[in-house]
């Protein structure tokens, strides 16, 4: 409990944490607010009728985009220990490194879940407002209000843990943050977009799968094709995300136990 409190303080004392939360909320709001317009007015051949359940799901699914910032919170939680040399104080206070790292991973998971839930809730509200402009309303008991927040929490927890692991494996803070952003903002998305059969196993594909969104729009007459028809169902996708979290955590633990602390 002492260690959890200490790790929690490291997050809440950092003004950067709040900046990242604001950024996550902003991207979720922007995505859910803009998607109805894009789907109804697109000249790229990917337009969908907003009255279909799939289109509504696709709009609300954009509320899960905050994970891009959750992972950065996780990276900073660990990499700042090496950047500021506070890892020395951390491991002097808790020489059993597995306990110190375990606390960090637990706090990252809890904080990541809440962080992404808040960002997602704002995004869902934004989506509801945007859809109401098109006279489309989703009943409050719809699965969207339960499944999507649950997906946001799972995604936030796992991605924050992955972030901590990346911060452990790559001790240079700038490099760790840059590589993570390039991968998740660009490479991961491009793979999911261009090679969906591979991309469905990567974080972006798995998070999309949590929305149970199997669509195929665009095609021969369109420069863009969005094809998630082969993506996993939500439960296998959730399981696969957890596997990612466990594998990254194990890598972080093994690295931390073996390396000297500078």
């Amino acid at each position, binding site marked *: 409990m002492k260690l959890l409190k200490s790790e929690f303080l490291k997050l809440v004392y950092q003004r950067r944490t709040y900046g990242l939360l604001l950024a996550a909320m902003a991207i979720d709001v922007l995505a859910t607010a803009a998607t109805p317009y894009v789907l109804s007015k697109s000249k790229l051949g990917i337009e969908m009728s907003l009255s279909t359940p799939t289109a509504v799901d696709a709009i609300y699914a954009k509320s899960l985009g905050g994970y891009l910032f959750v992972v950065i919170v996780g990276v900073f939680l660990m990499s700042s220990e090496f950047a500021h040399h506070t890892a020395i104080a951390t491991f*002097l206070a808790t*020489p059993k490194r597995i306990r110190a790292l375990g606390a960090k991973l637990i706090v990252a998971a809890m904080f990541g879940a809440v962080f992404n839930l808040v960002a997602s809730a704002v995004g869902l509200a934004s989506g509801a407002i945007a859809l109401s402009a098109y006279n489309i309303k989703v009943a409050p008991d719809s699965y969207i209000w339960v499944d999507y927040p649950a997906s946001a929490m799972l995604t936030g927890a796992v991605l924050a843990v992955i972030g901590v692991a990346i911060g452990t494996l790559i001790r240079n803070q700038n490099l760790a943050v840059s590589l993570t952003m390039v991968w998740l903002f660009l490479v991961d998305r491009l793979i999911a977009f261009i090679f969906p059969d591979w991309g469905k196993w990567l974080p972006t594909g798995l998070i999309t799968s949590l929305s149970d969104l199997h669509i195929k729009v665009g095609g021969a007459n369109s420069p863009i094709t969005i094809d998630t028809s082969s993506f996993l169902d939500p439960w296998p996708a959730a399981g696969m995300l957890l596997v990612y979290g466990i594998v990254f955590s194990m890598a972080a633990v093994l690295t931390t136990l073996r390396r000297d*602390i500078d």
Partner: protein
Amino acid sequence: MSTIEFKGLVKKYRDVTAVDDLWAEAKPGRITGFLGPNGAGKSTALRCLLGLANPTSGESLIGGRPYSGIAHPLQEVGAVLDSSGFNGSLTARQNLKIICAASGIDYKRINEVLELVELGNVKGKRTKGFSLGMRQRLSLAVALLGDPQVMVLDEPANGLDPLGIVWLRKFLRDLADQGRTILVSSHQLAEMQHTVDDVIIINHGKLVVKGTIAEVTKGKSLEEAFMNLVVGA
């Protein structure tokens, strides 16, 4: 009693042997100077002692136990290893609060130690604006948080002005007089002569000499003795 012991400590980095079969100890109630030129292996030995580096062989013990075996380490051992070990975007108090939380130390202790190292007036300031001397004092404050019986200090006088050095000398003497074990590494030989009771000198990772300051200097200054032992060896 909390004696510090190095028992055949060896630390290798690939082909480089940083510490080579070091046998030495620091006793309670005494200030032991841990001396050697740059790259002699002092910091590496201290990191092994504090569990931050894994020894290749041998062991280093505090009160008969490895650091990792101490249940409440900050309440038994205080360490100053790196004056940059603070998050600059946090205040002095916030930095110390994080450490207190991890160790179960009462937050009330924060004000006490900050007053002790004469930083009470800047406890609410972000540490990125601190001078090197202020960060050294803050490091000492961290080391004192748990009111430990053992202090391990790596170059604690770095960045301190002459007044600060005198303050540090008196500070360490007071701690030793309370029966605490003080192991302090330093380059400042003239200052160490006035501070330490016992001396451990290492070079190229190997023990050169250990003993009381009188035994090691044999009537000369510590600097002369050091030059004869290290350069002349």
